[in-house]
Each structure stands twice: as C-alpha cells, then as structure tokens.
C-alpha cells in the first residue's frame, strides 16, 4: 500500500467512525458530553454510540457501559470529557479497542501542574493502544462521517480541510466560514497535541481526495522540521493556508551573533512560506477569504494572476481598491485601445468611466434592467486578457431604489458571460452592504445564488484583494515548483 493510501486508511475511522464512545455524559444533568450526543443525533450520525458511565444503566436513552473495553464493539472514535486525572488510566485500560480518543478535558500540558499528567496521558494511550487528539480541545467536525462538535454545521461534504490548535477558533472557522460559503472536508481541533498533532492531520488532508485546500491555525509547533518537509514535498500542489498565532513574540534564541539578534520568532514562518509555497495570513478574515478563493477557483500555474479588471458602482471604492491591489502586488492597468473602443461603442451615459477600473453608476447599470453588464463584460472578454475580473456592487444603491430586479439581472448577466468564457479569468464578486436589514437580506440571497454557481463572494474590496493576492502567490509558487 502506498504511503498515501496508508494515511487515508489510518484516519478513516476518525473521519468516518462506525462506532463512537462518549465518556463524561451525565445520566441526570447536561454536560459537554451530553451536548455532544445531542448534536450527533441532530447531525444524523447513523453509527453506534456507546456512553461510558460508572453506574447508570442508560444515558440520554442509550445503554451505558462501564469502561471503554466493555462496549459491544471496538471503538473508532471516543469523545472524552471527564476530569483530567481520570483520563490516563481510562485509556490505559482500553485494551486496544479504541482507535482514536479525542480528549476534550483541560488541566494537562497547558498548565504547569498538568505537564506530568499529560505525559501520563500519552503513556496511558500507548499502553491501551489508542491514538489521542487533544487534550484541551473541543472536538471535530466531519461531514462525511456525520460527526460534529459545532452546532448547525452543514452536512455538505466540502473541500476545505481545517486543523486548529484552538478549539474556540475552530468553532469560529466553521461557523463564520460556512456563512461566507465555505464547505468543509473536516475540521479537527488538536489542542495541546500531546500525541497526534497538526502535522499528522496535515498529512491526512494532503492525501485526502475530498480536500482541495487546507487551512491550519497554529500556535506552537512541536516538530517544525516535519512541517517543513511535508509542505516542501507538497510542492504547492494543494494550497495550504497558515494562520500562525504568536508571531510577534521575540524568539527565545540567545543572541551572541548579529544573525541571532535579527532572528525574531516571525522570520522562520516567513521563510517557511517562501520556501514551501504555503500561504501565511495574519487575520481570521484573511484566512477565511483565502480559503474561499481556493474552494471556488482553480489555480493556474501556467498563468499566475496579475492583471485585474474591476467593474462596478462606486468611484471612490474603485480608486481605493486600485491602491490596495497595487500594494498587494496586483495590477489594475487601464485598458488598451481595442477594449476602450469596444466599451465606447456601448455609449454608456455620462458619469461612467470605461478605463480600468470600470465605474458605472446605478443609472448606467439600470439600463435594460441591468443587462448592460452583459455587454460590458462581453466587450472586455472579447478584447482583453485579464487574469481576474472583480465585479463589485454597492447594494444599498439598488435595494429599494431601482425598479425591477436590476441586481438580479446584473448577477445573471455576469454569470452568463462567465459561462461563455469558461476558464478565461477568475471571476469574483463583491457584494457591499451598508448593514441595513433589507440590504443584508438581499445580500444573503445573492451570495447563496452565486456560491451555488461556484462564484466566491466577498464583503469588501479589501477581502477580495487579500484573496487574489494569496491566489497569485500560490500560482507563482506552483509555476516555480514546476520548473
């Protein structure tokens, strides 16, 4: 069996568990483990769930068992949320019948007095023959196996694989990401990573055919060398987006040399990114925006993104975005004569600007109930070769102010053009809202419609700029890696 097949086989019981044990659910109260059972039922988990309880006959209507070794079948995934002190012994007595144990409990290596207990946990798991995720984490979300720690996680199996060293941020990533249109192939919170850690999950997602892009939130790395090797070997074939916490802490390196005094904690992450092609982002927003671009768009190593065409309503918005894009290393250059002529032939009303960026006030976009967008985009595609096209709509200028479904028609027009020129340019949509509820409601509706057609939607020009810059960096590295 190839290493890749072996990795997939090893982690299959984690992402698609047939049997689950739940430790820490109460027969009388509502603990985190009871919440887990409830969420698993709501999520449609169809395998067997075995609560482990010292005395109760049943928990949440399920027959309870005294220990991990006493369940009717071996356990693929054990969710463990009991007092930290009990966990090492419990795992040591699992008798080789548990494949993966996710230890939610805190009080291990994250506090000084728990470091010894964490060593016991690892030793216990080894003795009991199981692999550990956590401790000090929140759980995992795997649509393919109908496992979830988040409430209202989508049941769609998506293409974004997440690893998070923070449980809370893991929840944010799934829930906020979902609203922006991300769909996940999995999200695992790894907490202290006493046994299995980010590198192991990274290896899985790199091998996993469902996963198109990987997002990792890291705080501390235990084996940087292996991370470096895994990312280098990937040669940017699968994009990896890295959000690293704690980058501003100065390194602990003693500095007896000039080099030592210049080597802050951050340098190595920048180096890792430059050498392996992984994409280093600085905020949760950038992280989600970048993941969305890779979920929706197909990177082109043969034609890295550089020239951007911007089209929409909002002159100041285009000007500011042009500045931002330029700072991000993207180009918004005025059209050549053929495109200008084709656009001039459309005889757009005064107030429209047809150089790049194309600025068309609402009055222009209302023409033909919004179908004018189709002619503009057609003219661009017929005469120019941009790598990406960003259409931005200031929705507040339309909602309640224009007759007919101008916004709907604009969107439809853009999509029709896009389907006429498949693969010509990355197409990204920015739907800008002023936050009023009516506008927000239309935005949600449009966002859903565009996402269903595979078009990534962003809130502001800044967000689309970050996403395009990351896409460009990835494509350039992929181009470099081929040579």
């Amino acid at each position, binding site marked *: 069996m190839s290493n890749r097949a072996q990795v997939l086989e090893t982690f299959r019981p984690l992402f698609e568990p047939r049997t689950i044990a739940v430790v820490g659910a109460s027969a009388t109260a509502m603990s985190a483990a009871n919440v887990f059972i409830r969420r698993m039922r709501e999520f449609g988990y169809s395998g067997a769930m075995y609560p482990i309880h010292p005395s109760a006959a049943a928990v949440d209507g399920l027959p309870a068992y005294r220990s991990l070794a006493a369940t009717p079948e071996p356990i693929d995934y054990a969710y463990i949320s009991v007092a930290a002190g009990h966990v090492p012994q419990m795992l040591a007595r699992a008798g080789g019948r548990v494949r993966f144990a996710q230890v939610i409990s805190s009080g291990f290596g994250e506090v000084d007095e728990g470091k010894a207990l964490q060593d016991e946990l690892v030793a216990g798991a080894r003795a009991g023959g199981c692999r550990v995720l956590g401790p000090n984490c929140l759980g995992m979300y795997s649509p393919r196996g109908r496992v979830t720690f988040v409430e209202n996680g989508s049941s769609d199996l998506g293409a974004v694989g997440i690893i998070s060293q923070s449980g809370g941020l893991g929840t944010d990533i799934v829930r906020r990401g979902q609203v922006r249109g991300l769909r996940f192939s999995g999200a695992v919170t790894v907490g202290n990573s006493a046994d299995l850690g980010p590198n192991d999950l990274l290896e899985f997602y790199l091998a996993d055919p469902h996963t198109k892009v990987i997002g990792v939130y890291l705080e501390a790395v235990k084996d940087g060398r292996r991370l470096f090797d895994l990312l280098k070997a990937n040669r940017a074939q699968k994009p990896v987006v890295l959000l690293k916490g704690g980058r501003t802490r100065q390194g602990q*390196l*003693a500095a007896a*040399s000039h*080099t*030592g005094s*210049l080597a802050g904690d951050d340098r190595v992450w920048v*180096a890792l990114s430059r*050498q392996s092609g992984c994409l280093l982002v600085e905020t949760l927003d950038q992280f989600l925006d970048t993941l969305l671009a890779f979920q929706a768009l197909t990177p082109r190593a043969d034609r890295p993104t550089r020239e951007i065409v911007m089209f929409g309503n909002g002159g100041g918005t285009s000007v500011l975005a042009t500045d931002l894009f330029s700072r991000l290393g993207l180009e918004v250059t005025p059209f050549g004569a053929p495109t200008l002529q084709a656009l001039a032939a459309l005889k757009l009303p005064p107030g429209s600007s047809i150089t790049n960026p194309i600025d068309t006030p609402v009055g222009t976009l209302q023409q033909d109930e919004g179908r004018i967008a189709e002619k503009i985009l057609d003219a661009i595609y017929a005469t120019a070769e941009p790598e990406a096209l960003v259409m931005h709509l200031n929705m507040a200028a339309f909602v309640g102010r224009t007759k007919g479904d101008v916004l709907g028609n604009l969107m439809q027009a853009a999509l029709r053009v896009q389907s006429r020129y498949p693969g010509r340019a990355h197409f990204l949509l920015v739907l800008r809202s002023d936050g009023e509820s009516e506008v927000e409601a239309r935005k949600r509706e449009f966002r859903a419609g565009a996402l269903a057609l595979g078009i990534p939607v962003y809130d502001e020009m800044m967000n689309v700029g970050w996403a395009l810059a990351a896409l460009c960096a990835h494509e350039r590295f992929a181009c470099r890696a081929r040579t």
Partner: protein
Amino acid sequence: MAPDQLIREARAAGRGALDELSGKRLLARFGIAVPRSTLVQPHEPLARKLAGLRPPFVLKVASPDILHKSDVGGVRTRLGSVEDVETAMRVMLARPEIGRARLDGFLVEEMAPAGQELVIGAVRDPQFGPLVMVGLGGILVEVLRDVAFRICPIERVDALEMLEELKGRALLDGVRGQAAVSREAIVDALLKFAGPAGLLMTLAADIAEADINPLIVSAGGAVAADARFILTPETKS
C-alpha cells in the same frame, strides 16, 4: 580533515566558539573563499612571516575574550607594509581591553578586494533546525535590518529569492557608478553554507549561531572577511 575536527578541537579546549582562524578554515573546508592569512605573536619579527602575503594587510586581534573586535579597536585595515602592521599591533597592545585579554595572537590577512559588504549568518531554531540569513550592510546589518531568512537546506532558487527579498538589492547591481557585484558568487557561497551538502546541514548539531560578516562581494567573487561560529552547549555523544 573531518569537517567537525575544528569543532572537536575547540570543544576540547573548553571553548564555546571557534576563533576566527578556525572559523575561516571551516569555511574554506566547505569551499567558501577566505583571505590568505597567518597568525602572528606580539613582538614577533614579521618580515619573514608575512613574506608570502600580498599587501594591503588587515590586522585583527585574536582572543577568546574578545567577541566584538571592532568595538575594542582590534581591527585595522589598509595596512600597506610590514612596518605598518608592526605599528598597528603595538597600538592595539596598548589598549587596556586588548592588553589584559588572553591572546591567541594577531591575525594578519590579505585585504579582500573592495566590494559590497554583505552578511551571511545562521541560527539554530529549536523547531526547524538551522536557518540561514543573508543581509546587506556588513557591520551595519543590525541597523539596516535588511535581511532574508530561510530554513536549511536551501536550493538555488531559494538563494536567488533571498537576494530578491532584500530592499537594498539594487546595490548589488551597482549604483552611482559602482560596478555590479557577482550575484552568482553570493548564491554559490549561500549554497556551500546552507545547501543540502553545505556546512550548516553537515554540522547542524554543533552550530548554534554563525556570522560571516562581512562577506565582501565584488564583480569577481565573494570573500568571507570575518567569521564567527558559536557552538551549541551540548557536546555530541
């Protein structure tokens, strides 16, 4: 000579760092150009000792007690004759920081041809292992902070990209009438230092920090004009 022999000798002598001469021998062992040099003792007659070297000379104090030679007046450059070297040595010996230090002697070197001053350095990251740095500015590197780091080993493309990452990279192409320096020579030195079979990968367990500062790069090549290697505290078993 085994690559780690110089390191074993330093450790055996209870030193936590390689002296400059040993550091340069180590660099030369890996194919990085260093100036021709000789170690002399105070008050030693120099004419015969320096007969094989071509002026101008550089004189440097060599002492395990002195880490920052320039700071104590322990470096003199552009010395045109043996007499100039002797005079400069007497001046150095009169300085209190040098006079009371344990001396290995004084290093007399051929002065490298003029060029841009760069730095190549290394630190050992506890998680990622050896990192290599390249920077502009020689002794001003900590002021300019115009540096690029990579995780070892690096490939040729990484070395080229490191130079592209420097804000002052235009200096390498020659500004204000200066000749362009050899990027190829810098890349070559970087690969010999930090490439797959380079110094840092070969001696990863022993080297905690290193500075080649300055690396003087001209159109014709790159010469390591000074070298410092700080050893890791633990000895290899």
